[in-house]
């Protein structure tokens, strides 16, 4: 997708926000392109919700600039109140008004715009209901809907006035696990079908991966790393990103040689192993101390694993390390092996068919591509 050519719908520039003594957002910046699904991901209290609420106009920023389609909506002095911003929003609690019907909830924003006739409103409400598959429930009292239906109603209400940007504040966190999985996919399909620019906030990495085009990972009021959803998962650049997306093997070492023509670097790990890694788009030099991350599912056991499936593992430059199995944790869809290599604990995630016993001697294999050198 040629992102650079698309126009930015949302522009966030160096925004700052403090409450009493807490510095919630510390100068973060990002752009959201037209039609893009952009997610702020991070642990609770990282400032992601504050950022979303600032964009909605429910909070006022202290400094920086917020633009929605080239209109300055907040810079700490000029402030466009929420009711004048071209946004739709779904709240964590859905915020369905219990004293209104389903139709009453959806019609509320249309009525406030004061430019539609009752007939037009009626049609738009019905279209919105069709869109979220609530057809025929218009006259139901809103509290009589199930959790999933309330979620859809909240979406319909947010979309009915065709906003420029849709804001979603952890909308799936109140659903049970099964329903959440369903709604996740439905939300993805709906936003892509409507083609709306979406800004999403969540602490759930899986949600972020399923839904987003791009993800920004936040911590302590700052964006740590931003990138396409696949890259963030597979090739993190920051140790926090690696950790957040569940890479348990983070090792330290020193760069010995860098071969830029092949795009490979040789490393001496603190554990005593010598391994090969692909270089990244940032500069590294021989002699530099670095950290590397290896996903546990990218490590195979030599001979035991059906390594024929992975051609890369048969190349010359594949890394091999001898290790001892310490613990076998059967988790159903995979087995979590805790192994020791030269006194360094490592974790390997293997297919349930790959069954080893404790104290077994093994050789671990991983390709240079899967050794992510982290940005110092």
């Amino acid at each position, binding site marked *: 997708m040629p992102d650079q050519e698309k126009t930015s719908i949302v522009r966030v520039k160096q925004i700052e926000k403090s409450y*009493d003594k807490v510095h919630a957002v510390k100068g973060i910046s990002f752009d959201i392109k037209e039609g893009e699904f952009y997610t702020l991901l991070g642990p609770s209290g990282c400032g992601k919700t504050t950022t979303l609420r600032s964009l*909605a*106009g*429910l909070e*006022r920023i202290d400094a920086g600039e917020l633009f929605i389609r080239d209109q300055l909506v907040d810079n700490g002095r000029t*402030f*466009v*109140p*929420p*009711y*004048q*911003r071209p*946004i*739709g*929003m779904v*709240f*964590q*609690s859905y*915020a369905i*008004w*219990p*004293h209104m019907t389903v139709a009453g909830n959806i019609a*509320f*924003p249309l009525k*406030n*715009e004061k430019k539609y006739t009752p007939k037009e409103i009626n049609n738009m409400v019905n279209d919105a209901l069709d869109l979220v598959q609530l057809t025929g429930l218009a006259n139901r009292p809103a509290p009589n809907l199930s959790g999933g239906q309330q979620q859809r109603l*909240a979406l319909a*209400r*947010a979309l009915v*006035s065709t906003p420029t940007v849709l*804001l979603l504040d952890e909308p799936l966190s109140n659903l049970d696990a099964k329903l959440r999985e369903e709604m996740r996919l439905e939300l993805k399909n709906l936003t892509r079908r409507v083609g709306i620019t979406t800004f999403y906030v969540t602490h759930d990495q899986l949600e972020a991966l399923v839904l987003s085009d791009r993800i920004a990972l936040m911590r302590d009021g700052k964006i740590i790393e931003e990138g396409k959803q696949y890259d963030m998962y597979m090739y993190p650049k920051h140790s926090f990103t690696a950790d957040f997306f569940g890479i348990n093997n983070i090792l330290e070492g020193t760069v010995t040689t860098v071969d830029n023509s092949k795009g490979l670097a040789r490393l001496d790990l603190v554990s005593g192993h010598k391994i090969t890694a692909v270089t990244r788009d940032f500069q590294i030099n021989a002699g530099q101390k670095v950290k590397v991350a290896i996903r546990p599912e990218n490590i195979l056991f030599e001979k035991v694993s059906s390594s024929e499936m992975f051609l890369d593992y048969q190349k010359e430059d594949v890394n091999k390390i001898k290790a001892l199995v310490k613990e076998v944790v059967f988790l159903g869809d995979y087995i979590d092996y805790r192994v020791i290599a030269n006194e360094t604990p490592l974790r390997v995630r293997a297919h349930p068919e790959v069954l080893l016993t404790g104290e077994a001697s093994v050789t671990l294999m991983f390709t240079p591509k899967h050794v992510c050198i982290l940005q110092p």
Partner: protein
Amino acid sequence: MSSFEWFKEKLNRIFPLGVSIVVGILVLVPMGMLIYSSFRTGRPGMPGGEFSLINYVDAYSNIQTYITIGRSLYFATVVTAVTLLIGGFFAWLIERTNMPGRGFAYSMLLSSMAIPRMLFGIAWILLLSPRIGLLNHFINTIIGLPRFNIYSMSGMIFVQVLVEVPTAFLMMLGTLRGMDPSLEEAAAVSRSNTFSTLRKITLPIMTPSVLAAAVYLFIINIEVFEIPGLIGLPARITLFSTAIYNNATMLVPPNHGLANTYAMTFLLLSAVLIMLYRKATRHSERYSTITGKGYRPRLIDLGPWRYFAFFVFTAFFIVTILLPILILIYASLIPLYLVPSADVFSRMSLENYISVIEAPWMGRVLKNTLLLMVVAPTLSVLLAALVAWVVHRTRISIKWKTVIDILSFMPTALPSIVVALSLLIVFLNVRFIPLYGTLWIIAIAFVIRYIPYTVRTVSAAVIQIHKELEESAQVCRATEIKSFFKITVPLVAPAIINAWIWVAMHAGRALSAALLLYSANNEVLSTRIWMLWFDGEVTVVCALSIMMIVVLLIISFIGRFIARIVSRR
């Protein structure tokens, strides 16, 4: 942004400030004026006068002041203790035992609260006055015991206890209901018998909330005016409230300075009590034991005693509610208050009612009463909604919220008669606002007096409403104020209506404030009854009293009906 939108934006910012200023003026100006003029000689609103401590010197060099203080404290202490015991016992019977007819007993106790205190006072005088008291007549002529003199301290205490038991009952019921029965059950399975559980678990856990109830009742009993006024004034036994009334209105010329000094003492005392109350309730949070509802504790089996308990209850009901109402009805039907006899019964008629209805003042008094019962609660509730909005929904600093919180709690320490006195002084001084002698001044007194109650009620309801409901309205193109009034207010409507009914009922019956601010223009039912009573129009007063009860009941029924419709919607 257009200039109109700029204005709207500014309004959104200024509004919270405006609301706080209104609350501040309502609470602080009368209090400030009270303090200010207690240090001045001369009459309020009149030229002359200077700063001096003479009012305090006058008051506290007089032995009578100490007697009044001592008497008030004695009265309030005894009444509080006895009502707590009786109310607590009834609450325990209804909530924790298998006494028959518990639901009936509960509604009986509650219904008696709809009858104004003043009318109970009148009824008990008709029953126990040494000269005309019917009960005294029977005690004396039939049983042969000496007559009981209601015009005494013990007479006042007796009537006040009977009047205040339902309030004590309700507070103790709340305490009992708030207690987690599993705490007692845990004691029971820990080899503790019923008695030691009561002593070592139930009572210690209940102590803070019982203490809070005691302080609350004590404040009511020290500020009460009706019973000390009806019984104590003729008997020349003055308490705090009647002393203020005497000095501010009965003396010619009135001694505002002295009334003022009494009010200041009163204020100080209730401020101390309020602080105790806050401490007691804060402490009680540590014991917070409210658990999921629908968990009824095991009922204690009273065995055959449960019929005796029911008998006690019924006897209490007959004596304290049925008897007073019957005596009022009886007296309202006869031309002259006499012991029942064939002759008296033959002369029964609706003459008193007709004379009341046809009286030239009736239209005005009724109109004033109804107007007051609409204006005071409406203003109160509107103010409470705005305060709740500012405190819970706008982005003002915590400090500012605390200020508003304290301001709206302060009138708890302001007895009605003190509020009335301070408003009197304010509007005697501030002549350019011509409210002196109007109905509005009474309405303002009630608004101030009931700010703590209405703000607490409405705020508690607003807190229950998730803030996101309003924020989503803002995102849906509704302004902040519109969001509050379109979303939150309809959702808290039942609470608002309940608060409205509560204030309306209190405004309709309250005597002391209306009496202190009384003029020919702002006469209401309660003040007219008071005047007629002291004019000796006993039977006419009874007819008017019965009509007043009916009016209050009708209004409360209408209110409850509306509340039910709204909450069902």
